[in-house]
């Protein structure tokens, strides 16, 4: 469904490549987690699939198309087979939930009766029955993300790309979103999800592709998130380097209670 063949992406001449000789093959109907630190190339990976970028070297195939050499006027056709969800939901604030979802169909010229039938169905599927008339600001974060997912899948795309969809949500809500994505995946939609959420990755036990500095360092069929650095490493008593007159130990101040 998605195939990267030795793909490199260099944004600025001479800079370190954002992706370096990446080869990944995602089968139809797979659920893949894309993990790695910020700046490891996850977003570049997704934008290459969407053809917001072209690879510097190598080939990208999405749904059988050579995306790198796709001419501009065919890009819309490609994107109609892709759904995208973001961390910040990206709902249009001046439209209701129903209108937001319908917008995706209006833009590609679907007839009105199709929109009238499809949108409530999709809203029901994502668990927003009866909330179509709400404005995005009247919804919780989880509900907003459900609305965004509804918009992404309303055109029944073959692939759903999710860029840290749970990044703004609490763990319980995140779990709900993951169940929804899992359900969508079970209908045959290929899902690629970039995430930092190790709990979710460890729980789901799906395929994990880990990127580090633009290189695939791990590709496990039923993997976990992987090692994380300790948040507060034991560095001992080191000097406070950012204090005034850096380099010297900051004078210890005793706060006298009065």
């Amino acid at each position: 469904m998605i195939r990267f063949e030795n793909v490199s992406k260099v944004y600025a001449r001479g800079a370190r490549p954002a992706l370096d000789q990446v080869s990944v093959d995602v089968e139809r109907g797979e659920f893949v987690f894309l993990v790695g630190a910020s700046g490891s190339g996850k977003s570049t990976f997704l934008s290459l699939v969407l053809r917001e970028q072209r690879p510097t070297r190598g080939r990208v195939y999405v749904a059988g198309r050579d995306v790198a050499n796709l001419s501009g006027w065919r890009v819309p056709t490609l994107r109609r087979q892709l759904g995208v969800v973001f961390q910040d939901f990206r709902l249009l604030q001046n439209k209701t939930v129903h209108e937001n979802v319908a917008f995706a169909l209006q833009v590609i010229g679907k007839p009105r009766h199709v929109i009238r039938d499809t949108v409530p169905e999709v809203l029901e599927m994502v668990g927003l029955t009866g909330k179509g008339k709400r404005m995005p600001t009247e919804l919780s974060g989880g509900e907003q993300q459900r609305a965004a997912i509804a918009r992404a899948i309303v055109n029944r795309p073959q692939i759903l790309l999710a860029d840290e969809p749970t990044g703004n949500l609490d763990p319980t809500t995140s779990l709900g979103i993951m169940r929804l994505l899992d359900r969508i995946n079970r209908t045959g939609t290929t899902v690629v999800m970039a995430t930092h959420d190790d709990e979710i990755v460890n729980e789901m036990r799906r395929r994990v592709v880990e990127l580090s500095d633009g290189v695939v360092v791990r590709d496990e069929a039923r993997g976990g998130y992987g090692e994380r650095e300790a948040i507060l490493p034991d560095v001992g008593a080191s000097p406070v380097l950012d204090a005034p007159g850096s380099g010297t130990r900051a004078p210890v101040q005793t706060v006298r209670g009065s």
Partner: protein
Amino acid sequence: MRFQFVLGEVVSGLRRNTTMVVAVVLVTFVSLTFVGAAALLQTQISKLKDDWYDLVEVSVFLCPEGSVSPTCAGGEATKNQVDAVRQVIDTELTDEVSKVYFESKEQAFEAFSERYPDGYQGTQLTADDMQASLRLKLTDAEQFAVVSDVLSGRDGVEIVEDQRAVFEPLFRTLNVATLLAAGLAGVMLLAAVLLITTTIRLSAVSRRKETEIMRLVGGSNLFIQLPFLLEGALAAVLGSLFAGGGLWLAVRFMVSDWLERSVDWVAYVSEVDVLRVAPLLVVMAVALAALSSFFTLNRYTRI
């Protein structure tokens, strides 16, 4: 469905940028009014030329008694000299001159008396004060220079005069007015293009989110850009319609109702001419909008 959707986008875009849209309408209105005024002035000039050049002639004034011109050294032009000049006209200027007739001193005095029955400014003139001339009708009034070249300097010819010269100052004034109007129109058109560009840009920026979603869900380039294109075009066309209307009113009330009544022997531009110029203004407005859109849209709404 699609059409209705695009229309909705256009309306919401226009409403969001009302002040800018009004500015675009006004600037195109003013600039195209100047363009139209220039066009109407030129129409007026050609109307006057059509009308007047048919009436005017070239006068070949023959030597009177006591002329100081070197070709008149022999005193009053003799019959032989006049015949020689006519001969030249018949042989060398057959293509340029369509009609020749001779106006004697007596005929000139007759015409003069007719125009000034009570004498000219109190003087009492006789036929001897008049000057005989050959009157030439040209096939093409623009050919005066050729005729003048051939006839000037011949014996018995004092001076060759083009009656068109009488109108030259008027035409020059009208041409200068045309240039002025066209120049102002140019400046205003530039302002219009910049303003439309800015308006489209503002509109594009204020709808960045919509545009981004449209791109992501697979909206085609045309579909995404169409609302912006139509917004600019609509505002510009509205301005051009105002310009057409303004010119129509100006011609109706200033020319047809006033000038034509006070000075009625001149052919003026009419409302019909305005109707002929107006579509041109609309086309220009569309071209303006298209030009500005072309420069802006590719930068702000690319897929």
